[in-house]
């Protein structure tokens, strides 16, 4: 029996496959599921990355991971068995540091402890903006209130959000993501956050620039319909949604089906390799 393991939102795939030069992969939910310790690799995905690397396709990893500094979570992926290096990975924090420098902003940080080192070199005295990331357990009332007070005291509040995800999956279940707290602060302060990270077009474009490929020559694979697939398609790239990570639980909830999570990695690699 042939089961469709990926979702194709558009037709015209043969042409896409012919011109394909670069692939961008989301990490969490595509390559691995996060959780206790390092989490677990999704079956088949280690081999799938290896095959992509052996091909003539350019490969980058584009993540909204904001719980740990880049070096830390790349090391984690390496421990899980992935062939991946720091300069291939694009998370929001380094992009945010660039924005701060460009605009002379001094941030109040509401981010995970593991991410703080990314902002070591940034002036944080007398803050005139708030940066919010996936702070998880640090999303206490007290901490959110402190960020709120910084914003409400500004004439024109500036809120930079490292992603806008609704939730993600850990091995013990679904967890609220940064977007929820971004929306809370937006509502409290009548401000619109500037999202740094997926699905921001500037964020995707910086990855495409690094690969030296045009949007129509690139394909994004993710488990998030809005931030990965929608964001990529909005930039003119192709988007593939995998039925692992957050997709699976959501679809089970809606259709009460038992979507398979087996060897998805091998299947999407076969699909791309047939170009």
């Amino acid at each position, binding site marked *: 029996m042939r089961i469709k393991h990926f979702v194709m939102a558009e037709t015209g795939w043969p042409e896409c496959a012919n011109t394909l030069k670069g692939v961008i992969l989301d990490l969490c939910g595509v390559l691995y599921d996060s959780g206790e310790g390092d989490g677990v690799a999704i079956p088949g995905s280690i081999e799938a990355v290896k095959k992509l690397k052996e091909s003539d396709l350019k490969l980058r990893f584009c993540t909204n991971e904001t719980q740990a500094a880049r070096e830390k979570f790349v090391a984690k992926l390496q421990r899980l068995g992935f062939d991946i290096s720091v300069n291939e990975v694009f998370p929001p924090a380094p992009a945010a540091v660039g924005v701060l420098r460009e605009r002379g902003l001094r941030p109040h940080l509401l981010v995970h402890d593991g991410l703080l080192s990314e902002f070591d070199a940034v002036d944080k005295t007398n803050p005139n903006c708030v940066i919010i990331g996936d702070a998880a357990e640090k999303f206490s009332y007290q901490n959110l209130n402190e960020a709120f007070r910084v914003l409400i005291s500004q004439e024109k509040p500036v809120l930079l959000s490292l992603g806008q995800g609704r939730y993600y999956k850990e091995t013990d279940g679904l967890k*609220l993501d940064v977007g*929820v707290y971004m*929306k*809370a602060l937006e509502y409290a302060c009548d401000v619109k956050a500037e999202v740094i990270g997926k699905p921001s077009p500037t964020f995707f474009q910086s990855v495409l620039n690094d690969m030296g490929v045009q949007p129509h020559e690139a394909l994004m694979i993710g488990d998030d319909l809005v931030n990965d697939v929608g964001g990529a398609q909005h930039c003119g790239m192709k988007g593939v949604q995998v039925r692992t990570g957050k997709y699976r639980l959501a679809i089970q909830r809606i259709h009460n089906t038992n979507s398979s999570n087996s060897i998805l990695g091998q299947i999407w690699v076969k699909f791309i390799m047939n170009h």
Partner: protein
Amino acid sequence: MLASNMAGRRALKAVLIDLSGTLHIEDTAVPGAQDALNRLRQASVAVKFEEEIFTSLSAARSLLERKQHRPLLLVEDSALEDFTGIDTSEPNAVVVGLAPDHFNYQTLNRAFRMILNGAPLIAIHKARYYKRKDGLALGPGPFVTGLEYATDCKATVVGKPEKTFFTQALSDLGCSPSEAVMIGDDARDDVGGAQNAGMLGILVKTGKYRDGDETKIDPQPHLTCNSFPDAVEHILQNLL
């Protein structure tokens, strides 16, 4: 609370008053508020205080009873007694009020998972923030909004600024919206909500008020004044 001597011939029959930020901030009264309240009570007008303790909470309770929901109650301990007798075992609904102690990551995750699995989200009210002695502090509105975003659902709001909240309060007093005025420190939820329900709204510049708040609603408040005593003076001079 009801003052006596409702006079049928008056144009204005009822004054609804927000408490926190309008009459007091935590345990401190707004200067002159007590005197002003006494003067208002001596006039021929019904006075009713609008705070979740009295009305939004009971509205939430009757909704729960009607739908036979078993709620996860994210409300302050002092509000729990309003839900005495309601079955909270194996909860299948989420009720969010002003509850800083409950707005932590773990509890919100629990609420989120319940809503994602189909539990309705009920908001006591959606205030953005409120005034504490040490400054402004987040109200339930931001957390309700966050949960709505996470689950792609819409909360049922039983309190301000919902129109039914105001009309219910007035029908309890036996008067129509055109015969009533609301005094509060929240431009959108107190004043805008009341005016949307057909009442007059008076915005006071105490509590959570910040410069320019009166321009955040359309139409603008019937009156914006320094504090509760000025609002009472205006009512006594011009509306009775």
